[in-house]
């Protein structure tokens, strides 16, 4: 039972982090053009040769 003292804050932290990350993606406009983003990955980057 004593482990709860560590585990619960860790669990809170991890879940909180995930939520903050998601909210960041929303604010970062990652859901505004799903079709375009899905297509963009197929385009070749011309200006950045490796």
């Amino acid at each position: 039972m004593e482990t709860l003292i560590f585990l619960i804050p860790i669990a809170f932290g991890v879940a909180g982090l995930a939520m903050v990350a998601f909210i960041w993606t929303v604010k970062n406009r990652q859901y505004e053009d799903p079709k375009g983003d899905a297509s963009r990955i197929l385009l070749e980057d011309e200006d950045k040769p490796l």
Partner: protein
Amino acid sequence: MDIAAPERSAADPKAFVRKGDKGEYSLELLVKGAKCVNCLGKIERGVSEIPGIEQARLNLSTGRFIAGWHDKNLDPAKIVQKIIDLGYGAIPFQSDIAQSVSDTEAKKLLIYMTVAGASMMFVMMLVEPVWLAGIFGEMGPGTRTFFHWLAAMIAIPAGAYAGIPFFSSAWKNLKKGHANMDVPISLALILTAALSLWATANFREHTFFEAIVMLEFFLLIGRYLDHKLRQKSRIAAQELLALQAVTANVIQGDGTIKSVKVSEVKEGEIIEILPGDRIPVDGVVIQGVSQGDFSLITGETQAIDIGIDSHLRAGSLNLTGKLLMKATKVADDSFLAQIARLVEAGEQSKSVYVRLADKAAQLYVPVVHGAALLTFIGWLIAGKGFEVAIWNACAVLIITCPCALGLAVPAVQVVASGRLFKNGVLVKSGDALERLANIDYIVFDKTGVLTRGQPNLINRGEISDENLAAAAMLARASRHPLARAIARLAGPGPSIKDAQEVPGFGVEADVDGVKVRMGRAEWVGAQSDNSETEMWYRKGDDMPVRFAFSDTLRDDTIATIAKLKKLGLGIEVLSGDKLGAVETAAKAAGIEKFTAQASPFDKAARLDELNAQGRKTLMVGDGLNDAPALAKALVSIAPGAAADASQSASDMVFSGENLNSVYESIMVSRMAKSRVLENFWFSAFYNLITVPIAIFGFVTPPIAAFAMSMSSVIVSLNALRLYKK
């Protein structure tokens, strides 16, 4: 791209360029026809190649394109022209209108939904051990209460935050003195939170913290889907506004040409109209000869000659020659504006329609409130005390919470419009499907709906292959609809570069020193009997070759009409074209009732008449002249090649060549309606079972959680059945 779509030359977008604080310029465009990866790459790369352009980004989901640059000498018309040259339509967008497009509401709902969903999972992790320990008796009251407090720590703040949409909507409605669905929801949320906190503080066995966030999560999914569907129709309406904001080239006193917004054109001003331009305002021609495509305005398929003193109506297309026109009416009372006003009036009458979900809500609120109140009073009378009474009343509110009801309609509409989208039908609003399912009468426009809306060669057998190939070379150099029909038939190939368009007569060129002409009979020196729409081709002194045209029915018109008749729907044709043409087409399609030479106002009046008779009418039309009728009908569909105003005024747009899309849409909408009704029946049945359990006080937290999630899952799965035939 549809080659038959009227060509749009670059409207001068200077009036739409927005200047930022740091000297940066930006231009927003509505790009039409871009649907695939290649389009995206082609357009972005193409515009980036213009010297000076720093930013070029196309949103493939909404069709909005934004370009940014710093160089003040850069001509924004180059950007528009570049996109048009690549084969897409580009229309400048008024930035202040576009501002409101960024969908902040959807973003907020998405965040509320995530907060509710994530905290639901977390709270479940904490309360499930308590439930299991309750069965096996392995947890003391101390540990149990500790877990309850942990659950409260998450559920209370998360629930308060994710509940904002419900609380604010309920409060707004209560202030106005009526109760919507959000009132019992808010009441249930607040009551549950308060009682659960009280129970935790008093070491009770049961709390309902997980119910708070779970409820919000399921309800928010429904809200989010619903919002997305409504947003689609809002965007369509904004595009109509954007389309009216095209510019006109006004010739000023000193002879220079200035591009101004159409809304700023004054009466009496002289406007230059190039071949391929749309007429910006009503006016009279003072110089030049040309031909005009009036098909979107009158439904007439033949190109009409334009000369000095011809009256031009806003929205028609100038085909072959440059014209100077004197504006007779300003944008506000032009023909286009009258049409726009009629459309608006029609849409207002449409908003009277009460959506199924709202009907259900009207029934739901008093029933739920009544049941909760009766439970409370009942338990008080039974002498079980205040605590038991309020807990059971609260359980009734939780268990009846309309998770399934909130999902019932949007889930079905999302799936149904997704299925139609795959088949090339764009559904602009969710309730359009509901309305479509109820129709019992269909009014078709002729030109462009029953027929292809473009001339097709009908005497191919009389023309030799060499003559067709030679004529096609000349035809490719012309904008005239008949020439285009020949070019379309011959397929891609070379064109004569130095061909001269002679406005009002035809097109001519020199090929190896021999004069080649295509156009009017008397111009090429041929005898015409003038019975059909025709064009003549002549090389030097060879025999003139006759090309005859007619607007033929779509391939599947006859089959589709037969299928629609089988559904028992009344069908009629309402066209602006001449009687003979309408009669032939209607008879060929198998439709007995038809009206010809109907003006846009006649069409709207006919729809009013049908509405007054209690008919539930579907209008299918493509022309500007159909727009008011499209708006007046209970529900309307326009083909993808339709006038922009008609596409905006209608509820659905189908692309492709098949009229069968109309039949398909009706069938899917009917299936969607039965799915929605099934979902309602299921919700009613679910409440019939669970409400008595709640009233008599047998609902424990695990039962509530199970019942709520299962009902939502079942409703969603039922909606997904629509994907199957």
